[in-house]
């Protein structure tokens, strides 16, 4: 665990009503849960890493490289959102195909890779289906398949299971764990569910009011009682 997948140094952004400041170092190969109340800055943190938002100050390093001035597509990052990950008017295989070529020039071997990726997420034979005919969970699997063919070492999951029912959440968690085992990539995942944190994460980034107030390994995080916001998130108040 010597190399760092992501490091944010004195990253600062200001919006109309809030100011955010991020500082953290995430080791490569981990799954890190990003948690905190809504409005605490989780999505902004992701936007900064993915390149959708430009910080006013500070450095964003991904695998040691400075990301300043790099467009979203030039970063070693794939993103999966809560919904609308797929272009609804294009079939599943085409949507995955964008992960290989953004102008969709695909040859036979590329098509083979698409089918293979779909099979890996349990959607073999779904290539010709249109996204609206799939369930929410299936659509998210297609997005995972696209991330698979893209092979970017850092994967950002922005509440990817939020629109799914509990059974599907568990299935998706298993899928993510499996693929992480095979790919060895680094995953940052925003979530609201303590279950996701306990089942998936190696570490936890906890945000409160635009700052990363805790960055712990999972067992240490779960044992913490010193911050009111964390107690609220873990439900520790109710236990007592």
């Amino acid at each position, binding site marked *: 665990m010597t190399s760092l997948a992501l490091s944010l140094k004195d990253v600062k952004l200001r919006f109309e009503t809030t100011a955010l400041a991020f500082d953290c170092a995430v080791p490569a190969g981990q799954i890190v849960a990003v948690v905190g109340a809504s409005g605490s800055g989780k999505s902004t943190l992701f936007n900064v890493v993915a390149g959708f938002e430009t910080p006013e100050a500070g450095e964003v390093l991904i695998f040691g490289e400075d990301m300043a001035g790099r467009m979203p597509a030039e970063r070693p990052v*794939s993103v999966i959102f809560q919904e609308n990950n797929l272009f609804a008017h294009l079939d599943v295989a085409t949507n995955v195909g*964008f992960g290989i070529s953004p102008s969709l020039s695909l040859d036979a071997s590329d098509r083979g890779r698409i089918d293979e990726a779909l099979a890996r997420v349990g959607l073999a034979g779904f290539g010709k289906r249109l996204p609206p005919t799939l369930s929410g969970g299936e659509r998210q699997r297609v997005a995972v398949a696209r991330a698979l063919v893209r092979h970017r070492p850092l994967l950002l999951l922005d509440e990817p299971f939020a629109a799914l029912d509990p059974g599907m959440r568990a299935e998706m968690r298993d899928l993510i764990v499996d693929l992480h085992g095979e790919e060895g990539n680094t995953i940052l995942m925003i979530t609201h569910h303590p279950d996701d944190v306990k089942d998936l994460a190696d570490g936890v980034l906890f945000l409160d009011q635009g700052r990363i107030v805790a960055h712990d390994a999972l067992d240490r995080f779960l044992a913490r009682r010193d911050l009111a916001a964390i107690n609220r998130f873990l439900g520790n108040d109710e236990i007592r």
Partner: protein
Amino acid sequence: MFGASENRMTIAAAAFCLGGILLFVGLAGAALLAQSGESGANGLFDAYIWRVTRFTLLQAGLSTGLSILFAIPVSRALARQAAFPGRIWLLRLMALPLGLPALVAALGLIEIWGRQGFLNKGLTALGLQQPISVYGLFGILLAHVFFNMPLAARLMLAGLERIPGEYWRTAANLGMGSLAIFRFVEWPAIRGLLPGIAGLVFMLCATSFTLVLTLGGGPAASTIEVAIYQALRFDFDPPRAIALSALQVVLTATLLLVLKFLAPSPEEGETSGRVIRRFDGLSRLSRFADGTWLAVALVFVGLPFIAIATSGLQADLRRLVGEPAFHRALATSAAIALPSAAISVAMAALMIRAQRLVLARRHRGMPARLFAGTVGASTSLILLVPPVVLGAGWFLLVRPLGDVARFAPFVVVAINALMALPFVHRVLAPAMATHAARTERLAASLGIAGLHRLRWIDWPSLRKPLLMALSFALALSLGDLGAVALFGSQDLATLPWLLYSRMGSYRTADAAGLALLLGLICLVLTMLGTAGEKPPEGRSA
């Protein structure tokens, strides 16, 4: 449902309105049919009529194609550059042609593209001999694109802005280029809207009267509507007018059917309102391309307004405003626009309320459903039977009764009221539905009824949509030439009629001044009428 006698009165009044509309349109149709019987159908399919029909379809097709081809890059540029200074003003400018009377716009276009216009003066200065002529097909296309390109662009922009924000971030994350984004994201969204937009624009261009009347060049560039007018007003050839009217109704009926079955009607719809970040609009190349298209659109749409303003200000406005002819025209216009707008709004409100009452009954019999359906259809009857056709029917109907001029004001008021009805209905229906859903049961349970309900419940929350509808209807009637054209005379000279006759007698400075005044009045009224054109807050539960 609640307050039985009051409701029965509402329904009876609405039925009376409905009967009035059907009778008004039906009598015009009957007059046309009756006279066609006595004249025989030999004049029906002569070469002139075919030529006019062909030109009507040709100019409408070309206008539609050009408007859409121009609108695609403009809407794309507006969508891609979501936050540049002045964007909101450009959008407001794109909404302006809607409120400009066609006659005023025609004058503005002539100021620029006409023989004495900016453009030809420039070309002559450059040593070009042959001036561009704005009259004929070219001018008609120009005017139709001026009106419809902004409309199409706004509808397309709304479609593009409805695309989920994640799409743009995904596209940026995947590294899709501008071409790939157009092919796979933007074009599919636009393509879905095209049938509706194209149908709407084609319909507007196929039934456009004033622009063709002023910019068309004789029989070679005349549409069916203008030919009807000429047949009655100049040639006095009723059979020809009748044949043309029948043709026009068949054409609009076909178009309406095609639109109904093939194309969902385009909507501006609501967008999330937050600024959408388009990463593909950041590169220097796309900024340059978008900036160029927006500049072209700005000049194309903006110049006629500037031309109207500058040449209008050069006219002797003070003398013009002091002229008795202007006073008479203003009074005539007001005397026609005010009652027609009031009638339109009152009829629409009554019929919408009655429709709701009838449909709220638990046992909806066949008559109730028929009534409700007819009410819905009657508000857009004017689309099927255009003003000039209605006017032609009534012209023939009242002629045997004596001087046409005596009846003219009433016919024009009625036609103008019908013309405004589709727009008034579109403003009032959603507002009244929301209002009813919120207050109906509460008011009934508290026993608030009759005038008390009108005063304390209905008026406060419906005042705004009612005034908006009234304002829009006023603008429409004030700027109208189609209904007045057939009946206009010394006794019935409205502002557009006065403007048209000043243009015809080459009193250009007067015409420019009048156009400025008329344009200003109508634009202000339209802006008031569309001010809060957002979906009513808190859509009904």
